[in-house]
């Protein structure tokens, strides 16, 4: 029997330790043609918050929350919000990086 073709490819699984004991983690899956199928971006730091397993901020489309129109959503200190203005993975990555810059300025060495 022929092996089942893998439906998605994890093209990014990158984790970065921050000075304040946190971790930035990025996951990105595409189909064989390179179109984004799923993504997950998170900044986790248990020294900042214990809510949501330490996730301070995140953007992902892992599943749709009840009442949300789209599966694109954000995480912010243990709460989730809907992202209705999803444009692309690149655009979301840019938003994520810019928000990290704000958090970096706010927390300084604790970031």
């Amino acid at each position, binding site marked *: 029997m022929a092996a089942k073709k893998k439906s998605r490819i994890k093209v990014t699984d990158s984790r970065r330790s921050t000075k304040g004991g946190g971790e930035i983690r990025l996951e990105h899956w595409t189909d064989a043609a390179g179109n984004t199928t799923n993504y997950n971006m998170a900044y986790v730091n248990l*020294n900042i918050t214990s809510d949501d397993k330490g996730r301070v901020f*995140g953007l992902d489309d892992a599943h749709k929350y009840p009442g949300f129109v789209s599966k694109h959503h954000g995480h912010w200190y243990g709460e989730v919000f809907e992202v209705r203005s999803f444009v692309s993975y690149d655009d979301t990555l840019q938003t994520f990086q810019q928000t990290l810059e704000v958090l970096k300025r706010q927390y300084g060495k604790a970031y």
Partner: protein
Amino acid sequence: MKKTNTRKATIHRHPGMLPVDEPTIFTDESTHIVMGVQSEEEFFAEVRAQAAAAKRGEPKAAPIRLSFESAEQLLEALTPLRYRLLKLLQKHGAFDSIEELATTAERDRSTVSKDVKVLAGLGLVLVEAVANRGHGRSSSISAAADEIELSLVI
């Protein structure tokens, strides 16, 4: 003990915000880990390059990349004793408990437990809670990757 930072970014709550309901944040699919030193800009540039390659129709399964700000930070995380634990886990396979791992490594249980916690936090070790019939629960400890590549330029 590390002091907990209680400062919180300004947040404007609105009725659309919900409590989180997700059992896990991440998934592990690769068994190849690459550790190295990068600036945050280089880290994001590499991720963008992976996305661009995929968009060109060349999607490639990526190894897990563990990125550190400096060589010092990397070496603080991967101490010689933790390196030996990783080698032992790769050679031996899974251990059924911290005690068993500590005994085989000929080390103190509490320091092995701390090292396993750090390695698990880095994603280098997998710790799974298992029911231990008649003895509550114990932890199964195994290496997260078949291959760990260390990239360090001095």
